[in-house]
């Protein structure tokens, strides 16, 4: 038996294939950068680029600050204070994740328009001021209230690990509550806070629905604009490259802010002593949390339900049923593919020792930091080339074949989903593997079981809850996904996300409500399952 065979497995093979498939579209994009600049690009560079950069930076800064504040303080309150309905509220605070930012944007823009419900209410009470929701500030507010759960969840998980002994020591050293907050709570939660804000910013950069609808000229808007309105793919590619630079800058800033310190939690963890707020304190807490929930989830949802009654809309038309089926089928298929690949990469990565192998794992999970518009450009370019390459093969089967077979099929869209969401699936599965360690797997190998058998008999049963979590998180993201689906879907193929967007774009907000509500229901159910998942009695200790 040759020396390499002990190391080579189906996991290695799948990881290497994935690496190639991830790298090819991005490298293709990179090489296209060196094409000669045309007039459109010169026009963009001279007149528009500065605005794109300025707007993008401003949007990211505002969204980062707002979402950071909302996410951090909501997590702080539910972790350190004891009050009635805390359990329910701490679950409800995750719900805005089920509401895609673009849906919130359509609804709020409609409510704040001159004839909208909120504007009419204000006029009725004598306030004649007109709030301009469809602006950069409006977009930042929408993103902050719909994306803050990323910060909330990470900070809450971080705060829960805080040790009471630290607070007690600080108290004995006569530190005031504010000093304790400033010198203990805040610095200890910094990695989680910054990590959460990073996710919010990546989602903001990825968005197309909100900025397109509000007319905020940021990069994802610019890429679509260059590509579809100005008809110039090469400018779209150049803009994409600048976005990638943006992403790298954000990631570097995140690393710098997070610092090199790693905070080890003291062993012998003493549970936190919860504070009991005064009556005024309770009122402030309820007001704060309920306001977030109303703005981030309930007001838009209730408005959509009202919309349904206003227009007497049939909730389930035949078209809508097809759209739901399309959404479920492609989301489940892409999620399953992602889980299988992520499982293989995680298995490859956990036993990888060399820097090269670790680098390969990092490369395969690049996608999530790359905005959807950029992935769309890369994937479309790549598939056009693949189709060109495979054309002789197509001709063998059908003499009158069209040139673009894969490019006009769902294969391309599924591929793009895998590219973008593989990171999320991988990270969740990898975290589960980290919890169980490697000894169970190694024990199985020494008991004469192959890698594949070990995967099914030992690994999968032990990381089952992690796998379910990965499935749910990826599934929710794909159901909500808009920019990739909008560009790469075959003609006449719609998902709930694209249907909502198209109705809203055509100023048919009421008609958009039914698919939007169904989309929310489809995402709320898995979020409920995920947050209420019980651990089995034989879980790993």
């Amino acid at each position: 038996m040759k020396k390499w065979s002990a190391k080579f497995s189906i996991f290695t093979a799948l990881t290497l294939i994935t690496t190639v498939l991830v790298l090819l579209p991005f490298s293709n994009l990179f090489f296209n950068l060196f094409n000669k600049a045309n007039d459109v690009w010169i026009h963009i560079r001279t007149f528009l680029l500065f605005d794109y950069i300025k707007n993008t930076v401003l949007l990211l800064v505002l969204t980062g600050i707002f979402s950071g504040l909302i996410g951090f303080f909501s997590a702080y309150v539910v972790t350190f204070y004891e009050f009635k309905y805390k359990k329910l509220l701490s679950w409800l605070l995750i719900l805005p994740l089920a509401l895609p930012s673009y849906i919130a944007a359509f609804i709020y823009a409609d409510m704040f328009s001159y004839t909208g419900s909120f504007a009419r209410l204000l006029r009725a009470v004598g306030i004649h001021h007109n709030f301009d929701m469809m602006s950069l500030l409006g977009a930042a507010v929408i993103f902050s209230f719909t994306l803050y759960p990323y910060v909330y969840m990470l900070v809450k998980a971080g705060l829960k690990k805080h040790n009471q002994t630290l607070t007690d020591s600080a108290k004995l050293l006569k530190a005031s509550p504010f000093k304790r907050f400033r010198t203990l709570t805040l610095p200890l939660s910094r990695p989680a806070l910054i990590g959460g804000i990073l996710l919010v910013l990546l989602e903001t950069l990825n968005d197309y629905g909100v900025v397109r609808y509000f007319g905020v000229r940021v990069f994802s808007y610019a890429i679509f604009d260059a590509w579809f309105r100005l008809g110039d793919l090469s400018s779209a590619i150049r803009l994409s490259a600048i976005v990638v630079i943006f992403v790298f800058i954000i990631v570097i800033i995140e690393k710098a802010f997070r610092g090199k310190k790693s905070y080890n939690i003291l062993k012998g963890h003493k549970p936190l002593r919860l504070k009991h707020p005064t009556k005024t304190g309770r009122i402030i807490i309820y007001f704060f949390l309920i306001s977030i929930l109303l703005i981030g989830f309930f007001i838009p949802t209730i408005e959509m339900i009202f919309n349904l009654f206003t227009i007497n809309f049939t909730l389930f038309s035949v078209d809508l049923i097809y759209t739901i089926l399309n959404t479920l089928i492609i989301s489940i298929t892409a999620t399953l593919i992602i889980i299988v690949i992520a499982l293989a990469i995680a298995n490859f990565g956990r036993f990888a020792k060399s820097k090269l192998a670790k680098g390969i794992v990092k490369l395969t999970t690049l996608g999530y930091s790359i905005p959807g518009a950029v992935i769309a450009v890369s994937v479309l370019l790549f598939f056009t080339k693949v189709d060109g390459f495979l054309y002789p093969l197509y001709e063998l089967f059908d003499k009158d074949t069209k040139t673009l077979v894969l490019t006009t099929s769902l294969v391309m869209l599924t591929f793009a989903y895998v590219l973008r969401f593989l990171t999320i699936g991988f990270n969740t599965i990898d975290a589960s593997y980290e919890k169980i360690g490697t000894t169970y797997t190694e024990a199985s190998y020494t008991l004469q079981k192959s890698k594949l058998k070990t995967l099914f008999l030992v690994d999968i049963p032990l990381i089952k809850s992690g796998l379910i979590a990965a499935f749910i998180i990826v599934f929710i993201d794909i159901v909500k996904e808009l920019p990739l689906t909008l560009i790469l879907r075959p003609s006449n193929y719609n998902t709930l996300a694209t249907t909502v967007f198209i109705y809203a774009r055509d100023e048919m907000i009421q008609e958009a409500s039914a698919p939007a509500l169904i989309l929310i229901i489809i995402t709320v159910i898995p979020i409920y399952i995920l947050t209420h998942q019980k651990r089995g009695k034989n879980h790993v200790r």
Partner: protein
Amino acid sequence: MFVDIQSLSFDYDKHTKVLTEFSLLIKKGDIVALIGRSGSGKSTVLRLITGLETPIKGRITVNNKVFFDKHTNLPPEKRNVGMVFQDFALFPHMTVKKNVAYGLDHLSKQKKAARVNELLELVGLSHKEKNYPHQLSGGEKQRIALARALAPKPDMILLDEPFSNLDTELKDAIRDQLKAIIKQTGVTCIFVTHDLKDAKQIADKVINHT
């Protein structure tokens, strides 16, 4: 020699040499203790023998079968070497019976059941067959891990710090039991420890690995 390890070297990276030119010869049926400070690479020797790590050079032969040399590197599942891990690594989602039967796929259902019973009797835990690992004491876990490793009749068995997770009182009681079980099966054994008392009481031969 039954176990023949020659000039084995291993490192995790260029700067950390874990094992350099390590050689070891063991006769069939011997119990050998590998003793040394923590971090001296003694557990690595076991991982290299099982195939869980790959040496950078050297040669490992057990029962005339080449596990590793310039041209060969058998995967762990093809080496027929049993191992008892430091934390026992009993599969938490399987009962004791299923844990012990895990490596017996090559046997028929009846033969498998008979072998499991035989092993559980050998370690004195037949009455625990329906229990899950978290329902066992530390000493019981260790004996089940040993039964599981012995079940497929391995050419040799490796024990990584078998007493490190046990209380001192339990440890004294279990040492003799462990030796008796291993001797009864006649299997060749290497065990790693940092405690000279363990080594002297159980092993036929003690090797100081520093």
